[in-house]
């Protein structure tokens, strides 16, 4: 039976994959909130990439004769902070930081989570050990785990990225493991085994591509959590250090001037909220578009 299945098995045509992709994109684009989210994310990427072109001042340039200018000042669209630094410039460069930290920590988390999840789901002998480690990581509230790691590594934005990536690993590992467990029971995987395909080939060429849908949704949602956590840790003084133009650190700087220059805190806060909102709604939209019955509870 398995041999027949192996003989009859054909690689799904590329056209079919393309069709599925187009259908997914169409479904996603029907979701108005997700489209709004996509627009915000694209704008964020444009700001991050073209930051030097879009600002007139360096985000570090101090001008003590123009401190705490309000929003709508002639030379400074979003005003200046207590050192006279242009808030628009700092906001735009802050976009870069949040994107870089977000992408790198989600990427690192995915590498770790995918590796553990694939190994755990595919090799039963490793499953117990890996899942107990994952359980242990889940025993810490996320922000606490990140803070513990920062306590070891020291305070810096790079260490925040590392800490948040480690925090992403258990969630990703559980999702991937769940997918692998269901995929490896499929007939085509049994067929691959029966014709002598190596485990690494089965895992990388046949199981991994089929786990991608939940991982894409996880990564998108995770970007939202990462941006929020990075700014929170910087706000606490554990992440980006002055004078780095990081959004959370900008809110912390503005807290002391709430009476005289509230825009110092208001502007970066709105930026964080919009970007996190964007990733959340795109994640929601992707989940519905890829598979309405997908279960991402970890």
């Amino acid at each position: 039976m398995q041999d027949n299945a192996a003989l009859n098995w054909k690689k799904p045509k590329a056209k079919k994959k393309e069709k599925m992709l187009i259908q997914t994109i169409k479904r996603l684009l029907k979701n108005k909130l997700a489209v709004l989210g996509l627009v915000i994310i694209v704008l964020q990427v444009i700001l991050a990439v073209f930051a030097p072109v879009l600002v007139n001042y360096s985000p570090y340039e101090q001008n003590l004769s123009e401190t705490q200018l309000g929003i709508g000042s002639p030379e400074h669209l979003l005003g200046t902070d207590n050192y006279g630094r242009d808030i628009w410039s700092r906001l735009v460069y802050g976009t870069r930081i949040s994107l870089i930290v977000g992408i790198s920590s989600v990427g690192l988390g995915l590498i770790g989570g995918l590796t553990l999840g694939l190994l755990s789901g595919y090799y039963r002998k490793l499953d117990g050990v890996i899942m107990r480690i994952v359980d242990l990581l889940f025993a810490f509230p996320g922000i606490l785990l990140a803070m513990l790691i920062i306590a070891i590594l020291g305070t810096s934005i790079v260490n925040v990225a590392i800490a948040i990536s480690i925090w992403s690993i258990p969630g990703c590992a559980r999702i991937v493991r769940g997918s692998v467990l269901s995929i490896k029971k499929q007939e085509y995987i049994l067929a691959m085994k029966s014709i002598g395909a190596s485990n690494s080939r089965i895992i990388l060429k046949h199981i991994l591509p089929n786990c991608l849908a939940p991982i894409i949704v996880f990564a998108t949602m995770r970007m939202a959590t990462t941006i929020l956590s990075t700014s929170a840790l910087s706000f606490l003084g554990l992440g980006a250090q002055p004078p780095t133009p990081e959004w959370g650190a900008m809110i912390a700087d503005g807290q002391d001037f709430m009476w005289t220059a509230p825009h110092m805190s208001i502007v970066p806060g709105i930026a964080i909220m919009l970007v996190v909102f964007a990733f959340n709604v795109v994640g929601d939209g992707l989940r519905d578009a890829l598979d309405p019955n997908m279960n991402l509870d970890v």
Partner: protein
Amino acid sequence: MISLVARRILQLILLLLGISFIVFMSMYIAPGDPATVIAGPTASASDLEAIRTNLGLDKPVLEQYFNYLGGILHGDFGYSYQTGQTVTDAILTRFPNTLKLAIASMIVATIIGIVAGIISAIKQNSWIDVTSTTIALFGVSIPNFWLGAMLILIFSVNLQWFPVGGLNESIFSISGIKQLILPAITLGTASAALIARMSRSSMLEIIQSDYIRTAKAKGVKQKSLIWVHALRNAMIPVITVIGINFGSLLGGTIITEQVFAINGIGRLMIDAIASRDFPIVQGTVLLVAAIFVTVNLIVDIIYALIDPRISYD
């Protein structure tokens, strides 16, 4: 049920041991010599050696861990490198504030979340539903430290309805409640949004189920249908979210305490990280993680109790 509880308690004990090991090892591998932190950089080599011997840092790592574990079991978490105070005392003096904040925000989140979720579900697709769903979406996206700052700006600085910070009055006094309201809203907003989303989807699912349709066909009044027949079943998954959120709220207090200058575990921990006061970091992390996993265990058990269909085999 008894075997379920026994098994989960055994798992909890193993988990707590694992947590204590991770916390101990994380501080062991952290760069920096505790003896230097205590005695200062100008201390002589013999002084440093004496401190290391006194703290047991010259012993093999596993022996140090078991000594640490033995201490914990006797309520001894060590001494703060900075103040010399016992970690237990440092935690005990600040923990009530953290607990007050976590419980108050849980109450805020539960009331707002469930009411908003149920109204949204009953009035599905109405303007109330759309508004509530949109607010919930923003609620999970809003950085709570920023929300706190904005609430201070509006309600403390401009309107002067609430104090700017602190949590030193009794919660049974008006001034104590006033101190607690803004931090509780700040911390509870994201949880309220999650609970609202979960309540709405759960309620919608139940409203569309066969037994509700049957009850409707038999002439049960709308109010009784919602509040008596649907609500109880709809709340089962919501209780899990509330429980899990309580653990997260304890983690979240770390940030909120900083915004509102509340003298709690979170501020203690942040100061300890900044000054590399490892025993305090160990003690606070261990405490919060232990509460987190214990609350999760209680939620699991309550979940199994209220829904007999659930099996953890």
